């Protein structure tokens, strides 16, 4: 699998002064989650929609797994790509099960396979199949609707997922839990995901890499850590608030900075290796000797972190 490749992609509307997307080139590695981040009108949604050809580029090419998407038949292309939008767009006259089953039936899967796929996906998004299969969208909360939207996008087991500000219309509390679910799903399923948002926190939380767009052009494409420590220009620095050290800590995990455990006779507070450094800092500030031990998922100590280290990082 070769992921998604953007090669000098541009989109110019007829009566517009400047291009909506201007010579954007970058590669999305397979299995990674790339966030398209930028202010309103920067072209991130336009760029996203060129991948499933809801818009066609004026210039440039987009490759999906090495194939020029313009060489594929449009509906066939779209059936291979999961698409989640902000307003969800669940079909109100179909049950949850029918909504999710739509793509598999378009792909002509056999009934039993579709059935079990629907149940599998409902379980994956933490909705009990027996209870939710036959419900209608109007009977679901906003958060539940969007989770069904996600399940519907994953139904055909696509390699690629396009998400256009999927949590923009959802309340903050539900949004946080949905973000966690997306991270979990991504750990499990390892899809190639393009995720559009204007929410910097969301971007830093979810992304393996972030493509920052401004007025149609790609300004910087890098990991969250690199963006925070080496912003390409003033615009990026201000956008992600790169100077905020505490923000930098949130994108690092304990395992990224821990050192070998020295023998400490004291009993140290423990953190999991996947915990982000902001939480580690919080713990350190309440630890008597300003050192904590880092453990793996089984509880075995694999390293330690001291406050000194964080100051020097």
């Amino acid at each position, binding site marked *: 699998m070769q992921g998604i490749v953007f090669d000098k992609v541009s989109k110019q509307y007829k009566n517009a002064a400047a291009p909506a997307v201007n010579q954007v080139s970058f590669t999305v590695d397979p299995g990674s989650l790339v966030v398209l981040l930028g202010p309103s009108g920067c072209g991130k949604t336009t760029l996203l929609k060129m991948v499933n050809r809801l818009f066609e580029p004026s210039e440039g090419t987009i490759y999906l797994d090495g194939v020029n998407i313009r060489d594929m038949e449009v509906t066939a292309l*779209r059936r291979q790509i999961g698409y989640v939008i902000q307003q969800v767009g669940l079909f109100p006259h179909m049950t949850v099960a029918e909504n999710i089953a739509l*793509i598999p039936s378009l792909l002509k899967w056999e009934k039993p396979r579709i059935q079990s796929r629907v149940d599998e996906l409902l379980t994956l998004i933490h909705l009990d199949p027996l209870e939710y299969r036959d419900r209608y969208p*109007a009977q679901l909360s906003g958060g539940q609707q969007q989770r069904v939207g996600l399940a519907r996008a994953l139904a055909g087991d696509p390699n690629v997922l396009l998400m256009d500000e999927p949590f923009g219309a959802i309340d903050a509390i539900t949004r946080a839990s949905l973000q966690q679910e997306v991270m979990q799903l991504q750990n499990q399923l390892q899809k190639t995901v393009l995720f559009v948002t204007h929410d910097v926190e969301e971007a830093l939380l979810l992304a393996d890499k972030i493509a920052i767009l401004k007025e149609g052009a790609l300004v910087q494409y890098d990991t969250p850590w690199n963006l925070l420590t080496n912003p390409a220009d003033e615009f990026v620095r201000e956008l992600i608030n790169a100077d905020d050290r505490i923000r930098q800590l949130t994108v690092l995990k304990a395992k990224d900075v821990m050192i070998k455990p020295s023998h400490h006779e004291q009993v140290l507070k423990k953190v999991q290796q996947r915990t982000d450094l902001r939480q580690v800092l919080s713990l350190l500030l309440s630890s008597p000797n300003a050192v904590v031990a880092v453990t793996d998922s089984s509880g075995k100590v694999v390293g330690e972190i001291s406050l000194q280290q964080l100051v020097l990082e």
Partner: protein
Amino acid sequence: MFTNLINTFVLAWQYTLSHADEFILALREHLFLVTISMIVGILVCVPLGIWTARSKRIATAALNTVNTLRVIPSLAILFLLIPYLGLSSTSALIALIVLALPPILINTDAAFRGISPAILEAARGMGMKPQQILFQIEFPLAAPVILTGIRIAAVEVIASATLAAFVGSGGLGIYITRGFALYDYSILFVGAVPVALLTLFSEGIISGAQKLIQYPQ
């Protein structure tokens, strides 16, 4: 007053029985006029309504024409067309079709316009072909409003088919013209009551159909 009513009913019933064959013929003619004009109206206006919902140019032209028609009483439209088309069942039929067009067109147009763009975008993005979207998504969602338009048109057509008798066509209206000519209320009833029952019946059937396709909102 009420004895008057009951008397008229009884007389009307007797009249019907004594003119049974003529009555059945009139009823059949009436139903014929109604069914044909409704079918043609639906076959013309549903596709047209889909077209107007998608194309601004066509929409303004078609909807303006239809809205002007609505202000003119059906009686007037009927009477206007007949002299040019001649006194026959065919001309009555054409007039009825013209009367059926506005509600069906306006409602089909509104129904298709009213479908949330997010739903259509999701359907396109998922890789559904245009005909699949039309038949599996748009039509089911538009159906309730289209059925309302058909309901309104049906009532309009059944009523106007009655008036068609004034222009020499058949149908239950013959009893109304006759009743006015002979100044006999009971004959008027022979025409009026079945027509009223027909409209109630068609309302009932179409409302029932709407309830069947309802989904939780």
